[in-house]
Every structure is written in structure tokens, then in C-alpha cells.
């Protein structure tokens, strides 16, 4: 039997900045069942952190309700806190503390006995490969080591529900892979329900079984990565020609062969978006051949979540996250 871990209804949060109202989250309705692994995906400023901060009792909703682990976030914040784990955007460990000391006091904060906290800390130090640095001062740890310590602290009390805000920010590819591995294992071995936010498409794609796409404080799509792609983005066939007018003729021909295709031509390049593009490509190439249009090169790409986002919003997530880096706040 599965039960509901998170249920929000009309969850809304406004901020007032210099007399202007920022609607960070607008009427969010979200249900997450026990054992789910959900990624909130959206560009910087979409409202992902604000959502997480409301769900973890750090921020009071402006309106709407949220029940987390069976408790209402406004009426019983302490009940919620005792049942969840949270790994925030920043670093959770105090810089003048030793790593293991922080794990212990984190355990104590969740009501564990000293002995239990110590045993659990040893376990996590082992599984997160922190053995070499556990007795060092946090300020001497590398970014990746600190992030792993954050994860260990978030897991100390083995919460049934874990929130991770941009967990892989600042990690190198190897540590990112480690993190993904850890998240998967946690899900498989403990059945922990997890909600993570990310603006990395690959991360959402590879890690989550369910992706909630958020833009301007609203949910604009919510499904498995595969179904999102199937519903919102076709394969992308990119053809190169030697001459512009060949590309032009090819476009007309392609529209005749592939019904419902979307095409876009720039110079000698022709881009065709259509479902089942891989299967269609040989047929297209035969058609061009018959019409004596020589093709210089062809490439078929499976759709990405970026294509989904582009389709839904008309904007690319990739450009936004590259450009909006400075807007990101620790808040």
C-alpha cells in the first residue's frame, strides 16, 4: 500500500522586494507518494527553492496548504521537521567544526542518543567515503567533500522523506555520478521518498522517475522523463547540404514525406522535428535521393528535456541557466 507523503493545495508564496511583489510560487498543487523520486526542474528563479523551503517549514506559505509526512507545515512544523531530512543549497556544516562533530550534533538535534548518533555517523562516513576527512575541520574540506558531508548530515536520522536542493551544484562529474549512485541506492535499499530540485537536464533525466517542470512559479508539466519527451518533443533530424537551395528543396520534399513534421531552415542546414524520427530517416533519405538532392550529412537526436521545455515555454532551459547564474541566491 502506498500512502501520500506530500500533498499541497494552492501553495503560494509572494515576496515583497522594494514595494514590488514577486510571485515566487503560484498555486502549486502537488502530490508525492511514498517511495517516489521526484525532480523539480526549472530555470533559475522558477520557484524551486521557495517550494522546497515551504515544504520544509523554512518559509510560511502566503496562502494554500501543504501536508508533509502527514503533518501540516503551518500547524505542526515541528512534527514535519522531525520526519524529514533536508539538504539545502548551501553547506550545512559549520566551518569551525570538525566533520564528525557536526554529524554527532545533527544526530542529537534529531533526538538520537549519543551512541546511536556515533554509530550512524561511522556508517555514513564509510558509505560516503569521508573517512580521511571526518576528523578535520570543515573549512579545510574541498567542495565535493563538504557536499558529501551535507548529504551525510541530511541522512543521519534516516528520514523517510528527503529534500535535496540543487544537490549536485559545485560537484565535479565524478562526484556528481557518486551522488546519483547514492540517491539511487537510498531509494532502492531504504525506499526513501525523495524530492530534489535541479536545473541540470541530464540530472533530472537520469535520476528521477518523475519530473515536475516548474516555470514562473507554476507546474507546467509533470510526468516521467520518457513520457514528457514523447508528448512534448519529437526526435530532431539535422541535415546538412552543400547549397542553400538544396536545403530549400529538401524542406518542401520532407514536408511531403513526413506529415506533421516541424521544419526549420538556416542556410544550408535543415532541422526536422518529428516523432519516430529515427525510423523515418531512411525514408527521407530515399526521397531526397529520388529528387536528386544530395545530402552532405545527417544526424538524428533523441529529444531531451530541454526540447520539452522549449516546446512548453518557447525558451531553452540551457540558455537560461547559463545566463542567469548571477541571479541565483543562496536564499
Amino acid at each position, binding site marked *: 500500500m502506498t500512502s501520500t507523503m506530500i500533498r499541497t493545495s494552492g501553495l503560494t508564496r509572494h515576496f515583497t522586494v522594494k514595494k514590488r511583489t514577486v510571485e515566487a510560487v503560484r498555486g502549486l498543487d502537488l502530490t508525492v507518494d511514498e517511495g517516489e523520486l521526484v525532480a523539480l526542474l526549472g530555470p533559475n528563479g522558477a520557484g524551486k527553492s521557495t517550494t522546497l523551503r515551504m515544504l520544509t517549514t*523554512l518559509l510560511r506559505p502566503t496562502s494554500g496548504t501543504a501536508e508533509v509526512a502527514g503533518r501540516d507545515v503551518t500547524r505542526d512544523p515541528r512534527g514535519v521537521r522531525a520526519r524529514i531530512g533536508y539538504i539545502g543549497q*548551501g553547506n*550545512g556544516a559549520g566551518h569551525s*567544526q570538525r566533520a564528525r562533530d557536526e554529524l554527532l550534533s545533527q544526530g542529537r*538535534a*534529531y533526538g538520537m542518543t549519543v551512541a546511536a548518533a556515533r554509530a550512524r555517523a561511522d556508517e555514513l562516513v564509510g558509505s560516503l567515503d569521508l573517512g580521511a576527512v571526518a576528523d578535520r575541520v570543515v573549512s579545510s574540506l574541498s567542495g565535493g567533500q563538504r557536499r558529501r558531508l551535507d548529504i551525510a548530515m541530511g541522512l543521519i536520522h534516516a528520514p523517510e522523506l528527503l529534500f535535496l536542493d540543487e544537490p549536485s551544484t559545485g560537484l565535479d562529474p565524478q562526484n556528481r555520478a557518486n551522488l546519483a549512485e547514492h540517491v539511487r541506492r537510498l531509494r532502492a535499499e531504504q525506499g526513501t521518498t525523495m524530492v530534489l530540485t535541479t536545473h541540470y537536464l541530464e540530472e533530472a533525466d537520469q535520476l528521477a522517475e518523475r519530473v515536475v517542470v516548474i516555470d514562473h512559479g507554476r507546474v507546467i508539466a509533470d510526468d516521467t522523463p520518457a513520457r514528457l519527451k514523447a508528448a512534448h518533443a519529437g526526435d530532431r533530424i539535422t541535415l546538412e547540404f552543400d547549397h542553400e537551395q538544396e536545403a530549400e528543396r529538401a524542406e518542401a520534399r520532407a514536408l511531403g514525406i513526413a506529415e506533421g513534421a516541424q521544419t526549420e531552415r538556416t542556410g544550408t542546414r535543415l532541422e526536422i522535428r518529428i516523432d519516430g524520427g529515427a525510423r523515418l530517416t531512411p525514408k527521407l533519405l530515399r526521397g531526397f535521393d529520388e529528387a536528386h538532392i544530395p545530402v552532405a550529412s545527417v544526424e538524428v537526436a533523441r529529444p531531451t528535456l530541454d526540447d520539452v521545455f522549449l516546446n512548453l515555454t518557447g525558451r531553452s532551459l540551457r540558455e537560461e541557466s547559463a545566463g542567469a547564474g548571477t541571479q541565483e541566491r*543562496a536564499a
Partner: protein
Amino acid sequence: MTTFATDTATVFSRELRPVLRDPFSVIFSMLQPLLFLALFAPLLPDTDGGSALQWFVPGIVVMSCLFGTSATGSNLLFEIQTGSHERMLVSPLSRPALIVGRALKEIVPMFAQAVLIVLVTIPFGFELHVGGALVALAILALFCVGLGSLSYTLALAARNTEWMFWAVQQTLLFPLLLLAGILLPIDEAPEWLRVASHLNPLTYVVDAERALFNGELVSATVGYGLLAAAAVGVLGLWIGTKAIRRASA
């Protein structure tokens, strides 16, 4: 299940641990008071009560607590910026315990510094009255906890503007210090200065410390000092508790 008391103990021992692991940090923060001691004490004339140190040392003990404790909010400020304060806010720790535990920890470095100052000055003629000194430190502890809590309140209010924290702390620290007559007596100061001094709760604490360190256990001066310190303690904790409740709303 945790209670306010266990939560306070958790926060207290977390704050204390770096101090115990690196006791040198306590000495570092008292370099300035020790410098004042070395440079000022020789300038003061000996009184009929004995060495000038008898008057000066209790003031330096208070000053050393004042310097360390008023700056302690900067630790919280840093933890607000890095995210470790947020991590504690998500835990079920009681909100007041987050401030009270931190403020109580201030007693430990204060006590260590006082012992050090006394030990250093005894060879130079400072006469120690153990009973009085212990009561003096108990009273100072009350003041310290209140001041620490206020410093944390300032950190919560300053949030992302670190310069604001230091501007307010520095602006308040020195007038408070001078008006309490820690470095120079204010008995012969102009009228307005003396009035200002009487409005400063620290004045009563300093006077009581002097009386107690000189072995004078029961007197009106000690009573007023106790009252002032307790008032700062209670008021500081009350304001700090309100501030952290509001900050996490």
C-alpha cells in the same frame, strides 16, 4: 523525543566544541584587553586600597567578556550565509534553544579569560578574594548571556549585510565601555557624562565586580550590579527568542 533542555544542551555543546578543540581562540580574542591592561595599568596611581590593579583588573575582566561576547553574533551571521543555520532550522530543535544554547556558551570563554587575567596579574600585586571573585563571575555570566543573545539578535537582523553587524556592534561597544568607567573613573566627569553613565546598566555591573573582587560580598553596590546583570540577561534572552521566532516565520 527532545525537550527544550536537551535541545539547549545540543546547541550549547555544538557551540562549545570548537572552543574546546582549539582553546587558543579564547586567548586570541582577549589580546586587546590584555594590551589595555599592560598599557593602562602602569598609568594609574595606586590608591589607599592598594595596587591600582585592584581597581583596574575587574574592569578588564568585564571588558574581555564585552569584546568576545558582543562579537559572537558574527559566528551566527557566517552560519546564516553558509547555510548551516538553515540546516539547524529544518531540524526539530526548539527555536529558543537555538539562541539560548548559543548564548549560554558565552559563559565558558568569559570564565576562562577571567581566570587567565587574574593569574597574570597576581604576580604584579593583584590580591585575589576567591569567594568574591566567584560571585563576581556568576553575576557577569548573567550579563554575558544577555549580551550574547543581543549579539545574535543583531546577526539575525543584519542577515546578508555583514558590515551592518560590525557597524552597530562597534558603535555601541565603545560608548558602553567608556561610560561604564572601565578604563578611567568617571567620578570627576562632567554632569552629563555622569548622567549617561548612570543610565548604562554596565556601570552597575562593573561597580559590583570591583566590590566583589575586593572581597566585599554584601553591599548595595553588589545588589544593583546583580539586578542590572539579571535584567540584561532576561531582556537579552527575551529579545533573542522573539527574534529567532520571527526570523523563521
